[in-house]
C-alpha cells in the first residue's frame, strides 16, 4: 500500500510547490526557497518511484477509493517511471540553471508557479492511466507552458507563443474529439479497461477514426513529420531555462502518449498502419535534420534536431518488436538529457559569446576551452558517437530495424546520424573554432549556475554511455511491458482480468496459428507474423 503511494508524490509535490509559491506572490525570496525545496523533494520522490517499479514491476493506484474503471487510476510501468525520474532530474538541473537565468521580472510574472505547474502536467501525463485524465494533464501542461514561453513579453516570444498555442490547442481538440468517439464506442476511458475491452471488439470505422485522431493529436504534440511547424517557430524564443525544459520534456510527453494507445489500445496489426508509421518516422528524421542545416540561431538548429530525433523514437512504433520498443525507450531517456543539456549550453554560449546567432559569435575555444569540452559531450552523443549514450540509443533502434528487415529505415537512420554530426560540427566551427567576428570589449564569464547543471547532465550522458548495461536491461523491461498489455492491466484489475485480456489478445494469434510464446520471445517474430497474416 505504501509503495503505491509513491505514485502520488511526483504529481502532488509540484502541485503543492506551485500553490505555495503562488501564495507568496509578492515575496520572491520565499518563492525561490519553496521552489528549490520542491525540486529536491520531487527528485527524491521520482527516484523512489523508479526504484519501487524496478522492485515490484508495474504498480497502479486508484484515487478517491473508487473501483477501477470509475475512479482515475495512476499506473507506473517501467517507461513511465523512468520518464518521471528523468523529469525530476531535469527539473532540478534547470532549477539550478534558473538561479542565474531567471530574471526578477520573470519571477514577478509568476515563473515559479508556472514552472511547477508545468512539471505537474508532465508527470501527470506520464503516470495517468485514464485517457481523459491524460487530456486534462495535457491542458495543464499547455496553459502553463504558454505562460512560461511568453514570460518576457518580447516580440519574438509573443509571436512564437501564438503559433505554439494555436497549433497545440488544435491538437488537444483533436484528442478530445477522439476521446468522445472512443467513449461512445466503448463506454470507458480507463486505459487498462480499454485494453481489456478493445481486443474483443471489431475495429469499426468509429474506432479507427478515434485511433487516427489520437495519432494526429499526439503527432502535433510530439512534432511528427507533417505537423511539427509550431516547434521550431517557438522553442528558440523562450528564455534559456524554459527552452531547455521544453526541449527535454514536452515533445517527449507527446511521444509517450503516441506509444500508449498504439501499444495498449489499438494493437498495430496489418500492413497499412505499419507503413504509415514507417513513413512518418523516416520523414520526421529527414525533414528535421535538413531543416536544421540552413539555420543560424543555435536553438533553432537544436529545435529542428528535436524533430529529427523524434523520428528515431518513432522507429519503435514502426517496427514494434520488443527490441525496437526497448530501443525507443532508451532513446527517449537519452534524448531528454542530451537535448536539454544542449539547450542549456546554448545559454552558456550566449553568455560567453554574446549572441545566439552563430554568425555573430565565435572564438570560444580560445576564451572558454572548458565550455568546448562540455559542448562536445552532448553534441557527439546526439550524433551517436561511441562511447556516449547516443551511440547505444542509435545502435539499439538500428539493430532492431535490421533484425526486423526494415533496411530502408535503418539506412535513413544512419544517414540522418551523419547529417546530425554535420550540424553539430557547424555549431562547433562557428561558435568555438572560428575567430570572433567582433572583438569583445571585456572578458565574458559563464556563471557558475550555468556550469553546474551542464556538468551534471553531461555526467549522466557519460554514465549511460560507459555503463550502458543496466540501462539497456531496464529499457528491455520497459519494452516487454509495452508489448504485453496484460502486464499493464494486472495491477489495475487484478491477475484474472489480465489473463482474460491476454487470452483475448492472443485469440487473434491462435486463430492465425501462431504460437503465443513465439510472439513474445524473439525479435524476429515479425516476419513470422506477417507470413501468417
Amino acid at each position, binding site marked *: 500500500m505504501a509503495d503505491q503511494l509513491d505514485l502520488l508524490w511526483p504529481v502532488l509535490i509540484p502541485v503543492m510547490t506551485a500553490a505555495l509559491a503562488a501564495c507568496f506572490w509578492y515575496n520572491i525570496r520565499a518563492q525561490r526557497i519553496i521552489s528549490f525545496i520542491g525540486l529536491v523533494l520531487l527528485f527524491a520522490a521520482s527516484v523512489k518511484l523508479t526504484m519501487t517499479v524496478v522492485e515490484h514491476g508495474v504498480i497502479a493506484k486508484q484515487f478517491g477509493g473508487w473501483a477501477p474503471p470509475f475512479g482515475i487510476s495512476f499506473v507506473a510501468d517501467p517507461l513511465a517511471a523512468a520518464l518521471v525520474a528523468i523529469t525530476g532530474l531535469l527539473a532540478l538541473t534547470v532549477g539550478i540553471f534558473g538561479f542565474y537565468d531567471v530574471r526578477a521580472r520573470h519571477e514577478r510574472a509568476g515563473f515559479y508557479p508556472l514552472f511547477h505547474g508545468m512539471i505537474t502536467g508532465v508527470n501527470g501525463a506520464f503516470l495517468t492511466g485514464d485517457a481523459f485524465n491524460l487530456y486534462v494533464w495535457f491542458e495543464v501542461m499547455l496553459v502553463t507552458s504558454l505562460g512560461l514561453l*511568453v514570460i518576457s513579453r518580447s516580440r519574438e516570444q509573443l*509571436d512564437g507563443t*501564438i503559433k505554439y498555442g494555436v497549433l497545440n490547442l*488544435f491538437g488537444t*481538440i483533436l484528442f478530445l474529439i477522439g476521446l468522445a468517439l472512443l467513449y461512445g464506442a466503448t463506454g470507458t476511458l480507463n486505459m487498462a479497461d480499454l485494453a481489456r475491452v478493445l481486443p474483443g471488439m471489431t475495429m469499426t470505422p468509429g474506432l479507427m477514426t478515434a485511433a487516427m485522431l489520437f495519432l494526429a493529436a499526439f503527432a502535433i504534440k510530439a512534432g511528427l513529420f507533417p505537423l511539427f511547424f509550431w516547434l521550431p517557430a517557438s522553442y528558440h524564443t523562450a528564455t534559456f531555462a524554459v527552452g531547455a525544459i521544453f526541449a527535454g520534456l514536452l515533445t517527449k510527453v507527446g511521444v509517450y502518449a503516441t506509444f500508449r494507445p498504439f501499444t495498449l489500445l489499438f494493437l498495430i496489426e496489418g500492413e497499412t498502419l505499419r507503413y504509415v508509421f514507417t513513413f512518418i518516422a523516416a520523414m520526421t528524421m529527414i525533414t528535421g535534420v535538413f531543416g536544421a542545416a540552413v539555420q543560424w540561431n543555435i536553438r*533553432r538548429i537544436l529545435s529542428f534536431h528535436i524533430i529529427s530525433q523524434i523520428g528515431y523514437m518513432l522507429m519503435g512504433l514502426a517496427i514494434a518488436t520488443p527490441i525496437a520498443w526497448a530501443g525507443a525507450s532508451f532513446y527517449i531517456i537519452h534524448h531528454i538529457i542530451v537535448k536539454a543539456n544542449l539547450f542549456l549550453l546554448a545559454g552558456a554560449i550566449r553568455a560567453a559569446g554574446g549572441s*545566439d546567432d552563430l554568425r555573430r559569435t565565435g572564438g570560444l575555444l580560445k576564451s572558454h576551452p572548458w565550455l568546448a569540452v562540455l559542448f562536445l559531450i552532448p553534441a557527439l552523443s546526439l550524433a551517436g558517437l561511441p562511447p556516449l549514450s547516443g551511440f547505444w540509443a542509435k545502435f539499439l533502434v538500428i539493430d532492431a530495424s535490421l533484425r526486423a528487415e526494415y533496411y530502408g529505415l535503418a539506412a535513413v537512420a544512419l544517414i540522418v546520424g551523419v547529417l546530425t554530426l554535420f550540424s553539430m560540427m557547424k555549431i562547433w566551427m562557428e561558435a568555438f573554432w572560428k575567430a570572433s567576428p567582433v572583438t569583445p570589449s571585456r572578458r565574458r564569464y559563464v556563471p557558475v549556475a550555468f556550469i553546474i547543471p551542464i556538468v551534471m547532465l553531461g555526467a549522466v550522458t557519460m554514465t549511460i554511455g560507459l555503463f550502458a548495461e543496466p540501462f539497456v536491461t531496464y529499457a528491455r523491461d520497459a519494452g516487454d511491458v509495452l508489448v504485453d498489455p496484460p502486464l499493464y492491466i494486472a495491477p489495475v484489475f487484478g491477475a484474472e482480468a489480465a489473463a482474460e485480456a491476454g487470452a483475448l489478445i492472443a485469440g487473434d494469434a491462435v486463430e492465425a496459428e501462431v504460437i503465443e510464446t513465439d510472439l513474445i520471445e524473439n525479435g524476429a517474430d515479425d516476419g513470422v507474423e506477417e507470413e501468417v497474416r
Partner: protein
Amino acid sequence: MTFLYAAAIAAYTGCGLYLMLSRHVVRIILGLALLTNGAIFLIFFSGRIGSMVPAVIPLGDQQLAPDAANSLPQALALTAIVIGFALTAFAVALLVAAYKRLDTLDAREMTAAEDMGSPFLPPGGRPSTGGRPSNDGRSAEKTPEAEKKSDEVKTNG
C-alpha cells in the same frame, strides 16, 4: 433529436474550422473556441443522452435512481468546458499583449520569431524593422534573396 444534435456538432465544428483558416488571429482563436464546443457536444452526445433526471442522489436514498442520467459524460463535458474557458481567456490576453507589441493581428505579419537566425536575413535581423544593419560580407549576398522571399510571401497571399 439525433439530427438536431448532429447538426449542432457539425455547425460548431464547421464554423470553427472555417474561422481557423483565416489569417486574422482573433478569428483563429474564435474558431478554436467554437471547435472546442463542438468537441464538448460530441462528448455529450456519445454519452447517449437518454434521461433528463439529474445524477444526484435524492435526500434519504442510498443510491442513484435507476433512470438517472449517466454522470460521466457530464463530468467530462464540465472539465472540458472549464479547460476550454481557461485557454480561451489566456489566448485573448495573449492577443491583447501581442497586438500592443507587434501592432498587427495578421498572422502573415507576425514574423518576429521566424527572423531569429534566419538564413534569408542578415544577422542583425530584418532591416526594415530597425534591426542593426550589418557590414558582414555574407549578409550582403543574402539581402536580395531576403527581399525576393518576402515578395513571394506577399504575392502568395
